[in-house]
């Protein structure tokens, strides 16, 4: 029976594991954290229907438990070699693995918003990221105690579409996430003024435009076509931002209580490490390079090494699960050549 090792236990790795197991392969799933679920479990509700992310994770986990996948948490791969068509791998726990194919599902990290110095992240306490906000959603704003912000701004494209930040690509999911989070925030603080500062609103997916419409009509969220230029702190420790409303050609200053930086996706540290270990090519945006755009999105430059999920570029959850299923099939075809 052919063996497959999947490096990365987020939803891409989990889904690929389920599908490959159902095709009859022996699958080892390696995950460096204590539990599976990767990035998705950090986000309480997911777009576009604001379902609980736990619903998705539970569904895949149930399928995973029903399967024969061997799950290894708190593990990472530190050594790989290939002898004829078989891979030999060793983990940080000194466990040895053998595989006929490797799946790299090491995913993304959120862009380090400290790097956008002029936005004041890590300098002004009331500047938080989208990731920080999800922690607050999970804890029901316990950390904020009595704090009731009256004016909150969402800042799109932080670390994306930005030559100065070193990433010129679009991270795809931040626009709709901003709309989602703005709605959730309004649900929590119904009297607050919520603004979204954007360059473009990428509402390409199913129900995205409807969500945007609801944000405006039902929740009175203000959408301003202006890219944030600079954040300063007032003497009252509020945030003074400088933007130009490009639709009215007016440069303006606004005072807000809190801003949420929509930090984009970058290749994760795990992806960067595996890239070096397996000598994988990277594309112009430093994500893992697919063998052929459109026609072969799961093969890498190394034979027998398959790549899946956000390790190859920004994706939605739907994209990722479909990508993982496609990857499983590609491996199946490869192993039965």
């Amino acid at each position, binding site marked *: 029976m052919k063996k497959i090792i999947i490096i990365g236990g987020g939803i891409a790795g989990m889904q690929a594991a389920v599908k490959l197991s159902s095709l009859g392969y022996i699958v080892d799933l390696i995950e460096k954290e204590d539990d599976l679920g990767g990035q998705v479990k950090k986000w309480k509700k997911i777009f576009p229907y604001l379902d609980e992310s736990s619903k998705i994770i539970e569904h895949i986990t149930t399928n995973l438990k029903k399967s024969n996948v061997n799950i290894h948490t708190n593990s990472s791969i530190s050594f790989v070699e290939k002898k004829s068509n078989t891979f030999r791998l060793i983990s940080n726990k000194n466990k040895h693995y053998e595989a006929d194919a490797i799946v790299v599902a090491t995913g993304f990290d959120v862009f380090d918003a*400290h790097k956008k*110095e*002029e936005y*004041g*992240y*890590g*300098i*002004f*306490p009331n500047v938080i990221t989208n990731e920080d906000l999800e922690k607050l959603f999970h804890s029901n704003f316990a950390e904020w105690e009595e704090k009731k912000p009256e004016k909150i701004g969402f800042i799109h494209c932080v670390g994306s579409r930005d030559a100065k930040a070193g990433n010129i690509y679009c991270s795809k999911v931040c626009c709709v996430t901003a709309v989602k989070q703005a709605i959730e925030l309004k649900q929590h603080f119904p009297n607050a003024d919520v603004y979204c500062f954007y360059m473009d609103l990428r509402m390409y997916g199913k129900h995205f435009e409807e969500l945007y419409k609801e944000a405006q009509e039902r929740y009175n969220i203000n959408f301003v076509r202006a890219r944030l230029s*600079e954040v*300063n*702190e*007032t*003497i009252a420790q509020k945030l*003074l931002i400088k933007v130009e409303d490009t639709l009215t050609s007016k440069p303006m200053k606004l005072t807000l209580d809190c801003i949420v930086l929509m930090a984009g996706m970058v290749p994760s540290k795990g992806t960067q490490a595996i890239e070096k270990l397996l000598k994988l090519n990277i594309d112009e945006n430093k994500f893992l390079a697919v063998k052929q755009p459109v026609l072969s999105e799961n093969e890498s430059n190394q034979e027998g090494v398959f790549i899946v999920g956000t390790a190859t570029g920004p994706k939605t959850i739907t994209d990722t699960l479909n990508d993982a299923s496609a990857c499983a099939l590609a491996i199946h075809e490869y192993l039965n050549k």
Partner: protein
Amino acid sequence: MKLEGLKKIWKEYQKEIADNNYFYVRSCVRQNFFPGSETTFLRIMKEELGKNIYENPCHTTCTAIGYHGDIIPLDTVMTVVARQFALMTESGYENLVPSCITSFGLYTEVLDTWHHFPEIEEKIRKYLKKATGREFEKPKNLAHASDIIYKFCKEIAAKAKYKLINTNTGEPIKVVDHIGCHYSKMFPSKGIGGAEYPYVLQGMIEAWGGEIIDYPERRHCCGFGFRQFIVQANRGYSVSCSKKKFDSMEQYKPDMIITNCPGCPMFLDKLQYAISEMEGKVYGENGHGIPVFTYEEVAGLVLGYDPWDIGLQVHQVACEPLLDKIGIPYDLSKKYLDVNGGCLGKPEKANVLKTY
């Protein structure tokens, strides 16, 4: 403000600053408006730090004010810059230290352009050779004079006779640091601390006992704007820019402003006077205004140099309140004397701004 966030940024933006054998080129604005500052800079370099700093008397203006006033074409300013490099090479130096921030920005920009477009460097070499017969090497190290003082601010602190502490309250002097736009906005990696949170002046102030205060319009231009100030009809631009800064910093109650660009202290000093005359408004305490200093002056003050040697008498906004706070003695009877102790009369009092 969270210091850890700032420290992370400052670590990213450190730059190589040569530690001796400097080729010094002067600043047009500094020489006219704050001559004492250049004198003080050279005194500190030679007498306190024992450095070899050389000025070739054949050097000229880099013409950056003309360039940013748009009368000087790009090829011309690059060739003038090349001539300065040629004088540096001929004098046997490779570490260039401009006194002016606009010069520093210009030299950095020219070197960057030549790096990306070597054919332009070739063209300029030909122009220089044809016009003057000169050839040049590019500087190995380019650092602004304030970078040098920053580099040695701890050595200066060790020799300092005074600290930037308010002797009445025991608290650090509250300082607004104003960085010249052409220092790091164009090439953040060429400025200590980068463009958003430059550290070159903050490092000095902290080494000398003071405390930097942040305020919303910290990064805003003082308003020189070259042609916006040079031509009388445009001057409202300069006043508006400086006023925006003063209005923003006022509530933080700064004791003083420190600057590293030659022009900025002139504007921040004189335009407080202008605003007082135009609107009757005086910033700071007791109707005196907020005193504005060059970094050379602050270095000279902490080292115990006589305020009238370093040139504080040419400031419009009175510096004495700050000297009182620090406990630096001064003799008002000697403020307006000439080099031999002879009397030169006294400036008239301003209508609104209280002067000493």
